[in-house]
């Protein structure tokens, strides 16, 4: 059974748009458009990322048609850009292609880590905000950089838990917690999810949403993993709101000690 997120009265408001699902789906890595379409439906997501590349005359089908048929909102990204200039130009082209001001801003430092290039990211974010874009930057888990991105007008911050595609989960939950405590915009965990528990942890820490691509698209059964992660996002959100008990070093009995019988010596 897929989790029906639309029954939860706890929507995310992102740049003035109401999203009932707190799971955003990255579309990279699916074996086919059909598999992607099934995972979109199973995940309940309302926001999916797309990338821009040169037209390939051999390509079959249009991803835009599939995504629009699913009735979800498009979030173009600037994946593969290594400079602020290229990222800004790609965002402008994405706006032209998809008629959306929303952009998942990625400015990557190098091929091996795919970690964000902080100064270039900030520069590109500032430029795009000034041009009227709704900028959702893929950033490191550095709370100070997140604050700077918020200061230049980003609509959210999207920190990594661990490197893109690594499936290593949340490497530094303490940094993420600090970022969440101080953020005035939604915090979206944007990379590193390997399986459902990682997404649940992100939400328990207080993230407002989770963006997930490889964990779903490269799972052996992407549709089942889409359901699992959607459920985890919802469970984590509920747990965050419910308030976890404090951690203790020693046991705390749940059964009262008063009224214990005395069975004699």
């Amino acid at each position, binding site marked *: 059974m897929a989790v029906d997120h639309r029954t939860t009265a706890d929507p995310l408001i992102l740049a003035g748009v109401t999203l009932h699902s707190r799971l955003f789906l990255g579309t990279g890595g699916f074996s086919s458009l059909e598999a992607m379409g099934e995972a979109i439906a199973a995940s309940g997501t309302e926001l999916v990322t797309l990338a821009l590349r040169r*037209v390939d005359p051999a390509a079959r089908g249009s991803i835009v048609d599939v995504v629009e048929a699913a009735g979800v909102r498009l979030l173009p*990204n600037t994946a593969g850009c290594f400079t602020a200039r290229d990222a800004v130009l790609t965002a402008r082209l994405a706006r032209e292609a998809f008629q959306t001001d929303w952009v998942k801003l990625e400015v990557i430092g190098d091929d091996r880590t795919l970690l964000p290039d902080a100064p270039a990211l900030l520069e590109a974010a500032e430029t795009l905000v000034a041009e009227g874009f709704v900028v959702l930057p893929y950033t490191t888990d550095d709370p100070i950089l997140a604050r700077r991105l918020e200061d230049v007008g980003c609509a959210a911050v999207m920190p990594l838990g661990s490197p893109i595609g690594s499936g290593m989960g949340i490497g530094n939950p303490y940094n993420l917690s600090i970022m969440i405590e101080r953020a005035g915009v939604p915090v979206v965990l944007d990379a590193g999810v390997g399986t459902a528990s990682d997404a649940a942890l992100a939400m328990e820490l207080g993230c407002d949403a989770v963006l997930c691509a490889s964990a779903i698209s490269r799972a052996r059964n992407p549709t089942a993993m889409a359901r699992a992660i959607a459920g985890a996002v919802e469970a984590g959100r509920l747990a965050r709101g419910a308030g976890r008990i404090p951690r203790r070093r020693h046991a705390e009995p749940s059964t009262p000690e008063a009224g214990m019988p005395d069975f004699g010596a």
Partner: protein
Amino acid sequence: MIVSVNGTPTELAAGATVATVLAGLELPGSGGRGVAVAVGAEVVPRPDWERRALAEGDHVEILTAIQGG
């Protein structure tokens, strides 16, 4: 004149525009939706495709949506 189209040197008649180049391609989706064009670092909006003339040595990039995280 020779113009680079998505990295491929392409012979075009004088007076060719962005629309000329696009007409020679099979675009994905319906009506070129989901397609964007840059000449050098300049984004050419769809309404300007017909009139944006190309010059010798221009780099035309024609982009569309693909799956991506």
